């Protein structure tokens, strides 16, 4: 017997000892966290069957805590449970960069998905600038554009984005830029405007659209994320129940001169969306 073989046996024995002797976790929260993260990480694809006994063994969790966790995932709408169909993953969770406004046509999973994210305008209006907005964005623009957009993915509404932007030029000109800038940048990036994967990067498109809209280069975003319950109106727009958890992201986009150009609020469905961040530190390379 080789040393490596003995080492493998020892490790396996240790693992069995741990599984055999360690008391099962009764924390449904921990089981739920890991199952949800598994769905988000793509470790469990749509139509994957969840079996309580298997999950109990794999996660070292009691059957009861697994049951509770699966009920929570079902309430999230991520899995379906039925006597004949079993417990299956039915929906994927879509990752959104925490500080980016995505293009109007975007494929979150280019290699796998047939349908992409499509953003449609719900409402646009030109209003007199409220004093507090003038103060927050440090603007003396007499008017603001106020807009509401709805994003749909795989047939489901995923978020509602409302925002304001002070306009320092003709309102009609701004609305015209709003309509054409996205299409211009899309054409430049070579995307066909449908649900195709394309080779663009959403970061680049956001900055390019920003520059076309405001005639100044994009500087940086400032964001703040909270979790709130859906009010009745937004619940109706997004097809979720009143009070359902939602991610609310407030964001101000600044130009390179530190002028706040756009102030937006995005309500994301909590059952289908995640906000993600990736930060690199020091001179670390991986």
């Amino acid at each position, binding site marked *: 017997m080789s040393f490596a073989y003995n080492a493998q046996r020892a490790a396996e024995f*240790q693992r069995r000892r741990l599984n055999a002797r360690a008391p099962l976790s009764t924390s449904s929260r921990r089981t739920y966290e890991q199952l949800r993260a598994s769905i988000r990480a793509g470790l469990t694809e749509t139509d994957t069957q969840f079996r309580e006994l298997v999950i109990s063994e794999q*996660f070292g969790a009691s059957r009861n805590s697994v049951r509770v966790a699966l009920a929570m995932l079902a309430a999230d709408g991520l899995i379906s449970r039925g006597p004949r169909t079993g417990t299956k993953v039915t929906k994927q969770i879509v990752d959104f960069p925490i500080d980016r406004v995505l293009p109007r046509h975007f494929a979150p999973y280019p290699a796998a998905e047939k349908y992409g994210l499509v953003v449609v305008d719900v409402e646009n209006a030109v209003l007199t600038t409220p004093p507090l907005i003038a103060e927050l964005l440090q603007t003396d623009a007499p008017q603001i554009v106020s807009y509401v957009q709805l994003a749909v993915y795989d047939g489901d509404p995923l978020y509602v984005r409302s925002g304001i932007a002070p306009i320092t030029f003709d309102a009609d000109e701004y609305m015209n830029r709003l309509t054409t800038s996205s299409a211009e940048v899309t054409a430049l990036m070579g995307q066909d405007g449908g649900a195709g994967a394309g080779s663009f990067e959403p970061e680049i498109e956001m900055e390019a659209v920003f520059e076309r809209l405001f005639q100044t280069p994009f500087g940086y975003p400032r964001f703040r994320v909270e979790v709130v319950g859906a009010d009745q*109106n937004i619940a109706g727009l997004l097809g979720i129940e009143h009070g359902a958890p939602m991610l609310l992201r407030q964001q101000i986009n600044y130009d390179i001169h530190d002028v706040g150009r756009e102030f937006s609020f995005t309500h994301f469905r909590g059952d289908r969306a995640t906000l993600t961040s990736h930060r690199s*530190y*020091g001179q*670390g390379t991986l």
Partner: protein
Amino acid sequence: MSDEERRQHDLVTALAAQGVLNVDGGIDVEGLAERTDSTVEIVQNALAMMGLDQVTAAEHPLYVVSVDEHPEHQDIGGPGETVTAETSLLENETIAPSPLIRALMRMEESAVTMMEELGTVTGQPLFVRVSYYSLGDSDEAGWRRGRAAAESNSPDLESVFRMRFDTDLAESRVSIEAVRPDRRTAELLRVPAATPMVLRQVILTDVHGVVRELSFTHFRADRVSVV
């Protein structure tokens, strides 16, 4: 709620989060309505939805948590105040890693350390966090170093990481979700069942590509905003 009312509501929420609602210890509803070109009724409705109709913003603080730092390692108070969370250990176990833990931590180890902690501010529960570490990172010396870092003045994430793991931080990967807690978590954090919560997953990786920490934190959504 109409779209107009929602815009006002969102704006009021933003202002509350930034601590700009207070005037001499109270909320100037009329002034706020005037400054947002709104009506007193809309502002009052927005404040009511946030639970601010009977108390001032000062009594209902929103703590500001950095997207990838732990609240006990940073000042989470609003403008003009310094607040740091405290943690107490609930559980500390050696467990067999699940497939998810193996995948996210990129490990093949047969056992990991799981620690569950309750975070409080001024005695009030703010979050509950479960963290996973390789057994090699769970020695007492490492924990002492981590404590020392947390207790130093204004420790940043890189400093805390270096002191804790004796190597440099290369990247953090974070996911933030809106979820409902189970009954036990709701009781632990003293919120009504089915109250929305912030669920944050953080993966910290060192300069050698080794994942050092995987954590899941449930925050009270009525007390926390993430920046």
